[in-house]
């Protein structure tokens, strides 16, 4: 093919967006005099079908082999015009966009000067278009499996959707059981469904699904590779119980010398468990785990004459010799559903959470009202004969949310409604209770939320607008010091119990996954999505998706919706079986690379490695780009001292002539 450049220049009016500040005719006339330019046309909307048809016809009839579109930012329509070129049989990378809208007509008022600038932008684009080279998008196969990290409701839902579509899922959960935070909840707002009743069927489903391999009590150690081809390494922590033999009968736990001695994590440390335990009755898998930090035999090497659990277990499932195992497998996509931590109320010392036992957090109260909780669902304070039923209960909202003093400026989105729900449960369980809720705002934005808020107010719960300044003890009572800001009245409210509606925070171990997957964090420290509106489940790493509160606080319906979104995004890749990789990637001239490794350090995608090259028998280090990982951001090219690593379509030899024509005008 004769590759002498024959360039078509297409100047867009964009309605009046461009033409009102840029003299289109002058630009067209100027472009027609540029070297190698064969055709120049203008049109009201170049991106419209008739506009694109102009380009197609010229390519076919005039034999154009380069196209310059002078219109908007390439972020808007570069892909549109690439397809136009491809449809006309021309390599789509023979396109150069000249941005005369965002970088010219929209930011200037003087028509004469804007026209002069538009001419320069078009000239520079033409200069580069001459030197464009065809690029080809490669395809890689997608391993038909997904790794889901975290088996809360988000992870469970995503795993089920993918498994139901017929693809293999590896579901990795750090704790001994699936279920996550939702399993700790009593009822769910605003419908007051029993949380366990709607969650446990899904927990059982996911564990029994033939396409799901559940790796509970396991941790992802390492993930390497790229979209379609991730190599995963998972550490299966030793339970010291042979899961194939354990029947889940629980006799071991009954016999354990530390029975009722260890605070139960599931009950927010209010109930007690043994050293060998099932986190909660409906745990899946229903297999016991020995806490290696508490078990007398594991920590001291001795537990009476012989460990009681071993004696008690008729199945012979207990094995103190068990060691961590490493599982390695390949997946095509990854879904991160690692959830959240609740705000540590001790960080607001004015509320006395660390000082007074009757100041509790929302999640602790949730366990208190739950039938599976430490009190069997009775709202009582204290134990045994000292137990009293609190009558006056105050809720305080926005504890650790919307609060710059603790570094959390965001709204946690669930506290308004869970407070309303808990208040309602108090009214149900404590006859004659006197409940008030101190709030900044009430955000009842979801489906059925406002109605539920109305309902609880009608039940006699008082909402008082004010942010308490202090909680202190007076006799047997707690005093909430607050100003009712609607009536400007200072109050000292005497109550039996205070419930702090603590917000949601990123997990303290969020860094582990960031280091493994090179994720980014947004300002609120949750994992950052690729685009806040148009790619809310994607990440900057292709093939890695987010679901649930790992990405930001959300309620159960939103979590499930996002999990389904992440699952379908993963399925798009799995079902097509192929993924196209970037064509405008970096290339290394290994003969001039000095092997300093700056590009390796700088690459945000981990796409560059140093490899040993042979230079006339001498071994040296040089950079090598993994084509599937490179996204063509160009950071490496900017960092390279010797200009040995450059980005296709943005090579020095293409950009410098572009700059040069600007200098000589």
């Amino acid at each position, binding site marked *: 093919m004769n590759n002498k450049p024959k360039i078509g220049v297409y100047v867009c009016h964009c309605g009046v967006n461009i033409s009102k500040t840029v003299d289109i005719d002058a630009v067209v006339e100027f472009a027609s005099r540029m070297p190698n330019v064969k055709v120049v046309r203008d049109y009201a909307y170049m991106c419209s079908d008739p506009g694109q048809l102009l380009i197609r016809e010229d390519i076919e009839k005039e034999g154009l082999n380069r196209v310059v579109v002078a219109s908007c930012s390439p972020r808007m329509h570069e892909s549109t015009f690439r397809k136009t070129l491809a449809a006309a049989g021309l390599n789509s990378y023979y396109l150069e966009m000249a941005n005369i809208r965002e970088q010219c007509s929209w930011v200037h008022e003087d028509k004469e000067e804007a026209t002069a600038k538009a001419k320069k932008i078009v000239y520079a684009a033409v200069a580069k278009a001459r030197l464009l080279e065809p690029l080809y998008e490669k395809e890689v196969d997608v391993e038909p499996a997904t790794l889901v990290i975290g088996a809360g409701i988000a992870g469970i839902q995503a795993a089920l959707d993918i498994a139901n579509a017929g693809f293999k899922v590896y579901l990795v959960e750090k704790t001994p059981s699936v279920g996550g935070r939702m399993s700790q909840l009593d009822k769910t707002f605003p419908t007051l469904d029993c949380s366990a009743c709607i969650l446990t069927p899904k927990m059982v489903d996911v564990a029994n699904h033939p396409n799901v391999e559940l790796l509970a009590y396991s941790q992802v150690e390492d993930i390497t590779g790229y979209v379609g081809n991730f190599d995963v390494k998972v550490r299966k922590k030793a339970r010291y119980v042979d899961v194939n033999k354990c029947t889940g009968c629980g006799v071991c736990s009954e016999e354990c010398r530390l029975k009722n001695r260890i605070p139960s994590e599931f009950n927010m440390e209010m109930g007690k468990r043994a050293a060998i335990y099932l986190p909660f009755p409906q745990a899946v898998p229903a297999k016991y785990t020995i806490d290696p930090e508490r078990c007398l035999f594991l920590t001291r090497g001795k537990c009476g004459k012989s460990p009681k659990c071993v004696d008690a277990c008729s199945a012979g499932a207990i094995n103190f010799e068990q060691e961590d195992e490493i599982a390695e497998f390949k997946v095509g996509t990854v879904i991160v559903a690692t959830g959240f931590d609740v705000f540590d109320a001790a960080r607001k010392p004015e509320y006395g959470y660390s000082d007074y036992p009757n100041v509790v957090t929302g999640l602790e109260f949730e366990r208190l009202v739950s039938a599976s909780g430490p009190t069997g669902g009775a709202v009582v304070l204290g134990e045994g004969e000292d137990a009293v039923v609190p009558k006056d209960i105050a809720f305080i909202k926005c504890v650790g949310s919307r609060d710059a003093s603790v570094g959390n400026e965001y709204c946690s989105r669930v506290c308004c409604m869970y407070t309303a729900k808990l208040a309602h449960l108090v009214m149900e369980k404590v006859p004659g209770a006197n409940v008030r809720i101190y709030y900044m705002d009430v955000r009842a934005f979801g489906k059925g939320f406002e109605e539920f808020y109305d309902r609880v107010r009608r039940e006699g719960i008082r909402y008082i607008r004010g942010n308490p300044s202090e909680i202190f003890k007076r006799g047997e009572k707690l005093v909430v010091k607050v100003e009712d800001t609607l009536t400007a009245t200072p109050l000292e409210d005497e109550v039996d119990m205070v419930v702090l509606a603590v917000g949601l925070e990123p997990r303290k171990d969020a860094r582990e996954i960031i280091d493994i997957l090179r994720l980014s964090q947004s300002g609120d420290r949750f994992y950052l999505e690729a685009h806040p509106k148009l790619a809310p489940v994607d990440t900057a790493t292709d093939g890695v998706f987010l679901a649930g509160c790992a990405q930001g606080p959300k309620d159960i319906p939103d979590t499930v919706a996002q999990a389904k979104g992440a699952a379908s995004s993963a399925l798009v890749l799995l079902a097509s079986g192929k993924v196209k990789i970037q064509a405008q990637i970096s290339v290394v001239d290994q*003969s*001039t*690379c*000095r*092997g*300093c*490794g*700056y590009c390796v*350090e*700088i690459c945000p995608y981990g796409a560059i490695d*140093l490899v040993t090259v042979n*230079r*006339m*028998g*001498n*071994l*040296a*280090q040089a950079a090598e780009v993994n084509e599937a990982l490179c996204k063509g951001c160009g950071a490496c090219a900017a*960092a390279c*001292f*010797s*200009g*040995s690593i450059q980005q296709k379509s943005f090579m*020095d*030899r293409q950009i*410098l002539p572009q700059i040069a024509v600007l200098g000589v005008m």
Partner: protein
Amino acid sequence: MVDVAKLKEIARETVSRDDVKYLIGWRQGTFGFRAAPHFVNKPEDVDQLIFSPLCSHNLATYLTGVEKLPVPRGQEADSRKVALMVKGCDSRAVVLQLVEQGYGRDSVVVIGCPCQGVVDQKKVEAKYPDMGENITAEWGEKTIIFNLPSGKTEVPREEVLAGKCLTCRYPNPLLADAGAWEEVAVWGSDDYADVQDLEAGNPQERRAFWEDKFASCIRCYACRNVCPMCYCEDCILDRLNPQWITRAVNPTENTAFHLSRAFHLAGRCIECGECERVCPVDIPLMKLNRKLTKEVRENYDYEPGLDPEAKPLQASYRPNDKEDFIL
């Protein structure tokens, strides 16, 4: 303080090792107050080694600068270690070369030589002009002792030491496999007075200053060639396509050359002062390098060549990095 006899013993042992190719040190020069690099290939060459106030060369530049000849078919490249004598400043070059993965740690043997300062040829030649024969020198207590034909002469070190030594904060090697020394005390401190002088002027004055200096540049590239941190296989200054900087010797291109060079050393200059020492037309290159060093220290709290495990400046990012210079 270095025990030179002990140092020679270490050098002899090192050169005798089967896994060492050669040792690079210093020997006495042939005229004036000069030393010369000395490549010790066999144990008997060790006798000529010296370590004195004349040993200004930063020998680390040979580690990356050595030409690698094609290896004949059927043979293997010589992968034996190279042994190198380093002063404090030279050791920073080795550290940064390791950070930049120029070679593996196990391919060098570093012999440390704590340094009490090396002489500035220009200062000493002005003081004792027209010395035809070679003069040896040694360190005294806060002095330099020259063995002149007229006899031993002791001068206060401030009068003859190189500028970099007067502000040196790292006289002891930061990295060494062997050495016969007691650490020397740090007596210099650095307030960047030379840079502050320049910063005090207005932009027009600064421009006039540098235009004057750059105008005399003859583009011999000695500053680049001697720099231990300039080791690209294919330097952009030599490249014809694209030609970033033309070879024309005029103030515009000279300025482009010197600014490119300085920017390529931002956060990488280890302040050995070799560029300024070798410049035949006395351009104060360290003023330019140190301006960037000062900026890097003030803005990013970073000094290159101190820690072989540290990341290079350009490759490290902290969320609180200053970015107020971004428009």
